[in-house]
């Protein structure tokens, strides 16, 4: 019944995408764990966390697309929410190390020990519980987005001004997390994790489970996004995107609508970050770098903003390309990447998915037009024939 509801309430494409992602969530781990090495269907161990990473990025891009593609808020600071979620998870994983660190200090992480910290800072308390950490993964980015959005949207900061202050936000956080006094490990960040929920993070099974979790999270996020977008609220959001003042004059509280979607999006980004950290094994301030946030924008644009599947495809496509090119053409891959961005904007302004959609739509229209034309011609031909038929007897006369 639930499936039926899903089918009825969502676009067909979205349902297919959710289905594919869930299929991947099941197949990739199975292909990794059960199919023997050497078989053509075996997914090698190194590929699992890599694919997991792509999916985390896809989730992040989807989160950005919600605010940018559907509400017109170009956030150049979404990397910050992603990183905050990552740090929350990283802190949990750090606490899980316990006394297995190199100094065997049961309370303090290694980086605090050798910098002579005497006690655990207050904000580290609670992170030894997974539930608390999981809560923080969504709460911290959500709260930051709420406070930031509360001020920004109420003062009607829009357009590039908003983009630039979101960039300022992530840049300030980058500098702050670089500081060793902050107690987040400075530029080395948090690393050398051992266990998550009692399972070894390096074990193949854990990796596969993490991949499955990421895929499921992405599928859920897609369903949630789709529900938001297709609701009445979602329609108004698009109105805000296309004509903010008009929407406001129609009586909608634009700032509240923006605040809601911005906060939800930040939480999704936080979840993406939290899933990312155990799979790549490190979280450090580099994730706050403004360039990273810009890259997320680019994935979204490449895939096609304003569509739900676009950002997912864009993130996977660009990062897959990056993985291939950094190994295949280490000296020249930046040329290829740069050219890709330029070419996308010039030739695929709606992104891959947008362009394909457009193409399909055109084809459909064409078909329709063709059909109409055909019908018209058929009709005309028939008419002519009948006319001819009516004429013939006369001629025969």
């Amino acid at each position: 019944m639930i499936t039926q509801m899903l089918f009825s309430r969502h676009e067909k494409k979205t349902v297919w995408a959710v289905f594919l992602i869930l299929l991947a969530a099941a197949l990739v781990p199975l292909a990794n764990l059960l199919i023997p090495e050497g078989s053509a269907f075996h997914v090698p161990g190194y590929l699992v966390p890599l694919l997991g990473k792509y999916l985390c990025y896809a989730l992040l891009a989807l989160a950005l697309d919600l605010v940018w593609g559907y509400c017109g808020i170009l956030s150049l600071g979404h990397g910050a929410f992603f990183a905050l979620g990552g740090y929350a998870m990283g802190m949990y994983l750090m606490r899980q190390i316990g006394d297995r660190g190199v100094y065997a200090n049961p309370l303090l992480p290694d980086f605090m020990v050798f910098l002579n910290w005497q006690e655990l800072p207050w904000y580290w308390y609670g992170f030894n519980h997974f539930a608390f950490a999981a809560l923080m993964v969504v709460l911290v980015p959500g709260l930051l987005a709420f406070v930031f959005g509360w001020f920004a949207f109420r003062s009607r900061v829009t357009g590039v001004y908003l983009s630039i202050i979101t960039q300022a936000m992530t840049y300030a956080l980058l500098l702050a997390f670089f500081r060793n006094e902050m107690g987040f490990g400075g530029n080395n960040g948090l690393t050398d994790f051992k266990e998550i929920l009692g399972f070894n993070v390096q074990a193949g099974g854990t990796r596969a489970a993490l991949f499955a979790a990421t895929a499921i999270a992405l599928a859920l996020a897609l369903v949630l996004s789709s529900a938001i977008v297709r609701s009445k609220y979602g329609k108004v959001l698009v109105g805000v995107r296309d004509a903010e003042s008009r929407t406001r004059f129609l009586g909608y509280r634009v700032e509240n609508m923006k605040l809601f979607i911005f906060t939800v999006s930040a939480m999704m980004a936080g979840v993406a970050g939290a899933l990312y950290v155990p799979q790549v094994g490190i979280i450090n301030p580099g994730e706050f770098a403004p360039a990273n946030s810009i890259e997320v924008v680019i994935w979204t644009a490449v895939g096609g903003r304003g569509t739900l599947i676009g950002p997912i495809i864009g993130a996977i496509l660009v990062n897959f390309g990056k993985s291939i090119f950094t190994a295949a053409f280490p000296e020249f891959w930046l040329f290829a990447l740069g050219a890709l961005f330029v070419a996308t904007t010039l030739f695929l302004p709606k992104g891959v998915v947008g362009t394909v959609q457009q193409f399909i739509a055109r084809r459909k229209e064409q078909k329709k037009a063709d059909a109409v034309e055909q019908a018209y011609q058929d009709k005309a031909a028939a008419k002519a024939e009948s006319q001819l038929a009516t004429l013939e007897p006369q001629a025969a006369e």
Partner: protein
Amino acid sequence: MKIKSHVMSAFLAGALATTAFSSVYAAEDTIKVGILHSLSGTMAISETTLKDAMLMLIEDQNKKGGLLGKKLEAVVVDPASDWPLFAEKARELISVDKVSAVFGCWTSSSRKSVLPVFEELNSLLFYPVQYEGEESSRNIFYTGAAPNQQAIPAVDYLMNTEGVERFVLEGTDYVYPRTTNKILEAYLIAKGIPKEDILINYTPFGFSDWQTEVAKIKEFGSAGKKTAVVSTINGDANVPFYKELGNKGIKATDIPVVAFSVGEEELAGLDTKPLVGHLAAWNYFQSVDAPANAEFIKEWHAFTKNDKRVTNDPMEAAYIGFKAWVSAVEAAGTTDTDAVLDTIIGTTVPNLSGGYATVMPNHHITKPVLIGEIQADGQFEIVQQTPAVVGDEWSDYLPDSKDLISDWRKPMSCGNFNVATGKCGGKGS
């Protein structure tokens, strides 16, 4: 730390007795070597040179007939100064390309990022850059300097030769300067320097407006005691720092600056005339007067087709790491990680300053410490050279690490053995 030095010296004695063993396999395939240095992004400025140096060393080894009768093949990837990407690329090198060893990383963050990967997949990483210590992994060899092979001798030089009584510890705000300065502060206080004569200051990465900081240094230096700056300023921030120093007229005879991250490569972007006499501490300088070095520089110029390209300390560290690995593989007769791990400890190879470097059981190597003064031509004049010093991974000047040692030989095989409690795993107090 008596036990430690005892173990080490006993070891040094037997170290020279490495046997060269080479067998000829009539095999078509190659031995793959991974090179994991950023070729783009912020660290490309430093790391690209090391990639070139590695390619040169591999080419050179192939000219000599390769290794175990096979040719070496370099696999170059670009982790793009992105630390998680380092881990991903390391995994790819080991799992997909099946490399026998990886040479790479520059920043500690990148090393920390790949460390779990190398331990999980049981491969070898040779890390060629000076770092803050406080680490010893079974799968990593640290061929750059530990703090005791660079920072402490430099401060000794300042106190003994220059008569410095007041110190500014100026660094970029990240883990290497933080740890080094912690160690130095403890060391200076132990040497009787009062706390108020030590000023510690940090600036962000890529800091470019040094006016206030340099004025602060000048002010601190005007208290009537001979003052020096110990600089752990990183990469990009150095050029504007030295330009400001030069323009403010702070001469080496007034307030000398001794730097741990400034080598020939960094000076290549600077007019060094106003900086003559400022110092740097390394384990190698291009100006080292030794036949091995002359040969190396000649090859480097030929390889890069540019006789102005400078050599620097991390290049020497990469050279030593590569030679040690080659020699260990020859001794083991295989590139298998466990076999190489057994044979490499104690391997002694010539370094470029006319001496020898031995791989110690703590996976660090022996290095002489050289203090050099900047010259007008961008080179260093060596004003002091110590005998080879053993790299101390766990600093004696940090309370929590002073009881730790590491020894990767069997049966101990431990990276953080606590000599006070006699247990592996860092279990102290």
